[in-house]
Each structure stands twice: as structure tokens, then as C-alpha cells.
């Protein structure tokens, strides 16, 4: 009797979040899947509810969409790797080398940019990288050749790396903090040099942190469209831009849905991979 009542209580407790999840999240996913098999009338913009594989046929046969998908994934991978490399030294110092007060100061400094608008930060990079921007002014003053990174994939790489660095840094710091000080001591004790200790103990134990960080750097980069729009140039289209222009410009929601399926599959596969590497263990 009480057991039954208890069960009822659990159900009542879980019903709102699960109902929410089912209706809004899974429901919209299902609608997305469904509309990928529809088409749009190019003149009236009306969605024709007739089953067709045309959207997928175009995706498979037109190399444009493969190139764009490859670029999106490629830059996301590059950004992830760059952020891992950039985050390590600072994360290591924050987690293991400084006192609690200095740690707080450094963490606040890392988080500081996150309190400003993302658009403002992206725009400021336009001012830095632009032809008559801050960077070229410095280069000119120093007598060095000018750069023309503005509106190129290099600019995209730089800006994405900058945007997501804190999101790689934080999980890495907490992963490093979780490694007991006795483990590197023990490795050194058994003859491992500091580099061997790093390679065999600290790095492998920080993998969950890097995996958690890469969920941001990789998966979020993958779905981005604002940054390519603002700092990308000719040949910087992301999957998100194609989806955006099909929804917001040409009104072709079925095609956008079909293309986002690819995004969904890639992100889904990545999440499974990240979970294998312990990305969600700390949570």
C-alpha cells in the first residue's frame, strides 16, 4: 500500500519534467524528422506534405553539402584541439600551482568575457582583424607585413577558439583538481620523470575533463551560424548557415530539416564518444 503510494509520488514528481521533455524536445525532434521528407513550393513557399526523398538525394549528390559539412566538422575539430592545447598550461597552473586566492582571481579573469555579449565579442574581433584594424596597426608600426585574416576561415578558427576557451578550461581545471596530489608523487616515486608523470598519469586522468570541454568546443561549434556570418568570408559557410538561410531566407524548412539531421547524427555520435571518455562522469 505505502509502496504503491510512494511509486505514485515518484511518478507525480517526474511527470512534469518528462512530459516537458517528451512534448517539447522529442516532439519537435519528431516534427523535424518528419518535415525532412516533405518539400516546399518555391513560388508560394507552402510546404507540400508529400513524401519524398528529394532533400536527401540533393544532399547526397550535390558535393556542395559535403564540402560544407566537412568544413564545419573540420573547423570544429581544429578548434577543439587548439583549445585543448591553449587550456592546458593555464588549467594546470590554476588547478595545481597557485593558492586559493590567486586561483579565484584567475578563474574570475577567465570567466570575465562571458559576462559580456557574445555578439560584442565577435564584433570586436572584426575590429582587431580588419584590414585597417588593431592588429594591422601593430604590424605596420612594427614594420611587419600586414595580415588579411578578416573574413576568412582563419578568422573563424581564431574567434571560435577564443569564444570557447573558457568552456574547455573550466572542466579541465576541475578534472585536474580531482587528481589527488599523491598520484604524481607516486609516479615520481617509482622513477617517472615529470614529463613521464604527465604522460602516463596526469594526462590520462584529465581526459574526462577534456572530453567534457570538447562537448562545448566541438558540438557547439558544429551548430554555430552566427560567427561564420559575422567573421567568415566567401567559402566559410557552416551547416548552420545553410540551415539558417533555408529557414530564414528561402523558407525551405524541409531541406533545412534534412540537413540538420546530419548535424544531429554527428553530434549524437560525438556525445556517445565523449561519454565513453568520461565527459559526463563528473556531473
Amino acid at each position, binding site marked *: 500500500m505505502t509502496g504503491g503510494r510512494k511509486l505514485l509520488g515518484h511518478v507525480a514528481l517526474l511527470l512534469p519534467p518528462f512530459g516537458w521533455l517528451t512534448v517539447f524536445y522529442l516532439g519537435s525532434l519528431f516534427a523535424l524528422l518528419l518535415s525532412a521528407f516533405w518539400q516546399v513550393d518555391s513560388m508560394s513557399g507552402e510546404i507540400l506534405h508529400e513524401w519524398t526523398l528529394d532533400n536527401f538525394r540533393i544532399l547526397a549528390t550535390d558535393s556542395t553539402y559535403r564540402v560544407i559539412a566537412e568544413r564545419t566538422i573540420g573547423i570544429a575539430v581544429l578548434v577543439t584541439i587548439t583549445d585543448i592545447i591553449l587550456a592546458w598550461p593555464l588549467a594546470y597552473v590554476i588547478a595545481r600551482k597557485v593558492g586559493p586566492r590567486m586561483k579565484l582571481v584567475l578563474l574570475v579573469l577567465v570567466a570575465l568575457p562571458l559576462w559580456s555579449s557574445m555578439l560584442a565579442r565577435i564584433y570586436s574581433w572584426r575590429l582587431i582583424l580588419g584590414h585597417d584594424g588593431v592588429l594591422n596597426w601593430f604590424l605596420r608600426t612594427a614594420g611587419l607585413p600586414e595580415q588579411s585574416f578578416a573574413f576568412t576561415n582563419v578568422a573563424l578558427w581564431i574567434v571560435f577558439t577564443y569564444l570557447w576557451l573558457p568552456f574547455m578550461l573550466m572542466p579541465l581545471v576541475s578534472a585536474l583538481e580531482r587528481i589527488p596530489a*599523491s*598520484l604524481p*608523487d*607516486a*609516479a*615520481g616515486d*617509482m*622513477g*617517472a620523470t615529470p614529463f613521464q608523470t604527465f604522460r602516463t598519469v596526469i594526462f590520462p*586522468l584529465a581526459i574526462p575533463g577534456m572530453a567534457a570541454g570538447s562537448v562545448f568546443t566541438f558540438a557547439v561549434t558544429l551548430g554555430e551560424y552566427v560567427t561564420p556570418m559575422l567573421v567568415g568570408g566567401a567559402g566559410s559557410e557552416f551547416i548552420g548557415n545553410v540551415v539558417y538561410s533555408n529557414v530564414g531566407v528561402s523558407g525551405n524548412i524541409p531541406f533545412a530539416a534534412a540537413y540538420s539531421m546530419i548535424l544531429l547524427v554527428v553530434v549524437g555520435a560525438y556525445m556517445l564518444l565523449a561519454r565513453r571518455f568520461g565527459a559526463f562522469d563528473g556531473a
Partner: protein
Amino acid sequence: MTDESSLHAPAVSLTALTKSYGHGKPVLKGIDLTIRRGEFFTMLGPSGSGKTTTLRLIGGFELPDSGEVFLGGDKVTSLPPYRRDVNTMFQDYALFPHMSLQDNVAYGMKIRGVGKAERSERATKALAMVHLEAVGDRRPSQLSGGQRQRVALARALVNEPSLILLDEPLGALDLKLRREMQVELKNIQKQTGITFVYVTHDQEEALSMSDRIAVFSEGVIEQIGTPEELYERPASGFVARFIGSSNILHENGREILLRPEDIRLEQQDYALASHEDGLPGLVQEISYLGPVTRCRVTGADGDTGVTAMVPSRQARGLSENMAVRAVWSKESAYPLSS
């Protein structure tokens, strides 16, 4: 490391070591210590007394502010841990969670480039020594605390170092397991002949296992000696109080140590024998501890008092508020140097 002179050198020699952390007060105020080869040496003291810091200086995990560290006659004061022929068993075991037990034990050999076959054979053997050879492919997280402790021991032994440092290795175990492991550790130390330097705050553990003990207090060594020496002839009030339970009596401005087990409680008021001292008083408190019963006797002035441990059979007639006389032989009263 193994030239002619070092064969006769002590395993560890520390001279005038000092160490302080940050701007805090000094942790070590000048430690001089010699540990012999093959010895089971214990550093005993309350927390904050400097024993663990001394251990870390021997292992090379920290560097002293001044003073020198010698291992087997070689000066290693500023060498990093990986260049010292020492292995450590850490308080939290420090097992690598991402490796199997086998890989944990074989870690040091792998680092030093020992071949795969030899590595595997020696690791299996070391695990067998601690009865864990059957579960070598498990991860540390799948083991109980006692099992982890054994793996840590196997990992320290497998490299056949000249010295093993043990930092309160039994602290996290329950009493029964702890007793078993004390015996096992001692046996393994005897079998292998490796010098053990053992840190503990548990005086009973120190007494039962050690060849010699150094008692630490506030950054200095109060006394070094065999368990018997420390118990029977403590060099200071601190050692006397820290090792075993003790009564300290004041007589003519001097401190007299009286062990509770040396005190008899006489229920009849008869004259003292010439070789005996005594204190008449009332039984304040009786605690039955199994083989012995602890009795607190307070003298007539209300201030002086002694605690006696009497065999439980002889304590049957005692009850609280009973008038008794605590008596002890003159030889058992040990005057402490001030």
C-alpha cells in the same frame, strides 16, 4: 650508489634538517636522524609534529630549507623523487585509477624500461605476495580498502628498493584488519630485509612493529630508541605521556612516571613494605576492560590521584567510593629528567 663505502653506510641519515611552509611557523626545527639498514624504523608523533614532513624530505617530494639528506651514504638532498632509490606507500595508497592492478604494480618497471615478460612475471609475483594475484586485471575502484592497501604494498615492493617509506598506511582500515596487516607488514619486512621507514600517530602500532622509534613533537625529535627504552625509560614527560598511559607524580619538584600496570590496589590498610611507596585514597571510577580493570584512585587531598590497571580477577572486590591504598615498588617509579 653501491660503491664500497656505501655498503657500510646507514640506510638514511638526516642532518640538521629544517623546513617551514610559506610564512607559517617552522615545521621542522633541526632533525638529526640515522636509520640503519634492514631496520623497521618508526616515526611516531601527534599530527603536526613533523613526522610526515620528514618522510617527504626523505622521499624527495619536498626540499628542506637547510640540512642534508643522505641515502646509503649518498647526498640526495636536492634530488627529485625519481632519482632516489626509494619507494613510498602513501596514506591514500595513490593507486592509479586508470590502470589495472597489474599495471599499477608494473608501473615503475615500465618507466625504467623493463621488458614486458619480466614486468608481467614480477608484478604477478608481487601481487601473489599480498594474495591478490587472481584479480590483477581489476581496477582499483573495484577493490576494498584493505585490498587497495595490499596493492600499494606490492607496488612498493616490486621495485626492490633499498628503502620503503610508509605514510600511515593502515590509518583507513578497521581495527581487526589493521592488526592483521601489522603482522603481515612486519613479516614481509623481515622476509625481504628492506629498510622500512614507517610513519604513524598510533603508539600501540609503533610499539608492536618497530625495531626503533623516533618520537616527534613540534618539529623536533624528543627521543629515539627501541620500544622498550621508550616505554620504560622515556626521556621526557612528553614521551612518557605519549607512549602508553602513565601517571606522573610530583615529588620534591621532580616528575615521577608510574605506569598504571605497576600499581596494586590494597583493600586492607596494612603497612607498606620497605621497597614500596603508596597513596591512600578513594576509588573514583571503575572501568571493566576485559583482561584488566581500570581504576581511578583519588588521594585524601582531592588533587593527587593515580590510575591503576589491575587484573580483572583481582579487581572483583572493588567498588566505587571504597577506601583503598594504591601501592607500587620503588623500582617502578621512574624519575623523568626535566
